[in-house]
């Protein structure tokens, strides 16, 4: 219950078309709303219910539905309650209206999403490069961006080099625990003394792989 005017969130948002309010827990409210009435919701909860802190805007790429989901996380210091307003927009068009005039921090969040997902926010003050200043490809957080294929194309791979390793092994270094022993490493750690561990290794009690 809002302390100031004794109106609950449900009453404030009742007139918005097609809205679905879910009280997840005592201090978490989820609001699902159509894209064209999202700014109305934000304006109502900021103006009438003290939700003044936009703590994040997150984005989800639902590639099978051909949609982007935008989530606006808004916090109230008086209610100590977080509202997350969910909305979905078209993936091909990838355009949405900026909420910069309502919440100033949206500048950074929208710029970030523009860079990572390629959604253009109409009315946002600086729709330009933010963190990935050396990036020329498609937005990398989209689901159809294949990071591994990009790496294979762009970078060279260092091969495992046995000569180099042998030189170190001769000097007493090298790999301490072989990969096949790592699976049984828990057993080795349980043995209390060094001598016990060495004996176990010698007798091949451990180190044959996890099936044995």
């Amino acid at each position, binding site marked *: 219950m809002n302390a100031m005017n004794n109106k609950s969130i449900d009453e404030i948002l009742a007139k918005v078309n097609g809205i679905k309010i879910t009280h997840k827990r005592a201090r978490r409210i989820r609001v699902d709303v159509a894209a064209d009435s999202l700014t109305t919701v934000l304006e109502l909860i900021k103006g009438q219910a003290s939700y003044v802190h936009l703590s994040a805007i997150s984005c989800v790429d639902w590639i099978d539905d051909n949609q982007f989901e935008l989530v606006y996380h808004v916090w109230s210091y008086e209610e100590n309650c977080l509202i997350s307003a969910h909305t979905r927009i078209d993936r091909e068009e990838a355009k949405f209206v900026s909420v910069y005039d309502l919440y100033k921090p949206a500048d950074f969040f929208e710029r970030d999403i523009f860079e990572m997902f390629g959604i253009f926010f109409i009315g946002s003050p600086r729709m330009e490069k933010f963190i990935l200043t*050396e990036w020329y490809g498609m937005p990398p957080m989209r689901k159809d961006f294949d990071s591994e294929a990009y*790496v294979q194309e*762009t*970078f060279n*791979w*260092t091969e495992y080099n046995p000569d180099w390793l042998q030189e170190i092994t001769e000097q007493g270094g090298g790999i301490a625990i072989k990969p096949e022993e790592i699976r049984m490493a828990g057993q080795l750690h349980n043995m209390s003394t060094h001598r016990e561990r060495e004996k176990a290794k010698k007798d091949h009690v451990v180190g044959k792989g996890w099936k044995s």
Partner: protein
Amino acid sequence: MKKELLIKQQKRSNPLAHVFDDFIGFCQSKSLFMLHYCTGCGAIELPPAMTSRFDMERLGIQPMVTPRQADILLITGYVSIKTLKRVILTYEQMQSPKYVIGICSCTVNGGMYWQSYATAKKLNEYMPVDVYIAGCMPRPEAVIEGLKRLKNNIMQDKKQHKGSAWKDYYKNYDYYLGNQQHLFGDDWQTPVDVIAEAKLYGLEGEGTYGKNTDKLKKVQQPLLPQEMKL
């Protein structure tokens, strides 16, 4: 006509030349200033390596605040492409002889970030690396061991040419520049004129020039003093 300033390798006639080489190598290896570029998680192993427990200073290695006064560039962890630009700028500012140490697996081949689009994988494609200290993360003992190895390399530099990886940057500048341009685009330019430095040190090789340096010449703009603005 202006005379070009060139340091030419002269024939050595001094009978004590090798003794001096040994002495210079010994002195250089005993006083090293280290600039640590703490990019990733490996930086957390440096405080114990520097302070009383493992005590780097007993080897004559001290942290230094500016690249121009440092001998060692220590890169501790993954290098994102944006960071790599800064690392290269830092490296080129350093005065030779200069040494690069890559700590953690990430500098060797990308480590656990091997499939990330944002991190550069092999550091020695962009600058010559003297010593790698592999591990995720290496313990301070390993860091000290790596530093000792670098000291040995510097001491034996004149005989075995182990500690002179920095000369490779001048001799094969075209290769390094090509890899840098591959990531940063063809208009990549640093404030340091590496080719002019290579001429000055007499370290020009066949690899100093190539198609990548030609590309650089086309886009290279003369460096002007920056305007002061308040």
